[in-house]
């Protein structure tokens, strides 16, 4: 059998074992296993590395445990903004997107840009229009924003307010 392989990551963070319970650890591992399988299945059928990495990343974009797609972090305005890129090592073609808000699978938009666009990187509403023109799925905030990420964002906002109220922290 010819060699094929896939590897994935779901983010690196400074986290202590005491900050993560067994249930969440297992959920992370299940999510990683699902993403690996999605990519491996493509390769096993003779599919391309490009399609395999897209499939693996799509799986994690759907899983709210990971910081991409559904369940991603919120900006200071409490909105989602996604970045993604995909590169073909054979042709050196690349597709990338920045600050898109409504594209369900930003990595799939990046792949369409790689395949169909004269440019490498599209951002914001232009990227979203390109997604629409290529029949990619768009979703609203109710799909992307999870209670956990909303809470993390609210905590940050509360900390900012408290910091401003603290004597000695005022600047003129």
């Amino acid at each position, binding site marked *: *059998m*010819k*060699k*094929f*392989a*896939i*590897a*994935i*990551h*779901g*983010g*690196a*963070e400074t*986290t*202590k*074992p005491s900050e993560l319970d067994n249930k969440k650890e297992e959920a*992370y*591992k299940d999510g*990683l*296993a699902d*993403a690996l399988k999605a*990519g491996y299945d493509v*390769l*096993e059928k*003779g599919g391309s*590395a490009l399609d*395999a*990495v*897209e499939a*693996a990343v799509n799986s*994690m*974009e759907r899983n709210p445990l*990971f*910081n*991409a*797609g559904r369940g*991603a*972090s*919120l*900006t*200071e305005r409490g*909105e*989602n*903004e*996604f*970045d*993604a*890129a*995909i*590169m*073909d*090592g*054979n042709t*050196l073609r690349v597709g990338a997107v920045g*600050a898109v808000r409504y594209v369900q699978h930003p*990595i799939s938009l990046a792949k369409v840009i790689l395949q169909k666009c004269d440019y*490498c990187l599209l951002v914001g509403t232009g990227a979203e229009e390109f997604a629409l023109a290529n029949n990619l799925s768009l979703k609203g905030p109710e799909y992307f924003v999870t209670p956990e*990420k909303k809470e993390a*964002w609210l905590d*940050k906002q509360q900390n900012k307010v408290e910091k401003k109220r603290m004597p000695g922290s005022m600047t003129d």
Partner: protein
Amino acid sequence: TVGAVALDINGNLAAATSTGGLTDQLKGRVGDTPIIGGGTFANNEVCAVSCTGEGEVIMRGALAHEVYAMMKYAGHSLQAATEKAIQLHADKLQGDRGILSMDSSGKVAFGFNTGFMKRGYWAADEEPFVALWESE
């Protein structure tokens, strides 16, 4: 951030990265993920790379391309190049870094300075591997 690198039966490498950025980031801030050679890079001759961590550090260090350059021009192994990229300019560029890389033979390397990186690997005819902590 999530990412993947792969080698197919035709010997082609690819890399992909997707992210939601940082909690409370400024509207319009774009991180390393879509910056080619910053957070994502692939070249069949050498390797495919996907990064995670603090985007500004990864962009300033051009870390994905550094893994490629250290292998191609300095002759480092995949593992050595990945580990060196994690430490590169560490005195000036401090922050969380994680790098996933794969060479043209399908070998994989994971590098991170956080103690925790969600990760996995599966090669043909091998058992899948997933891990979270550095000790795994």
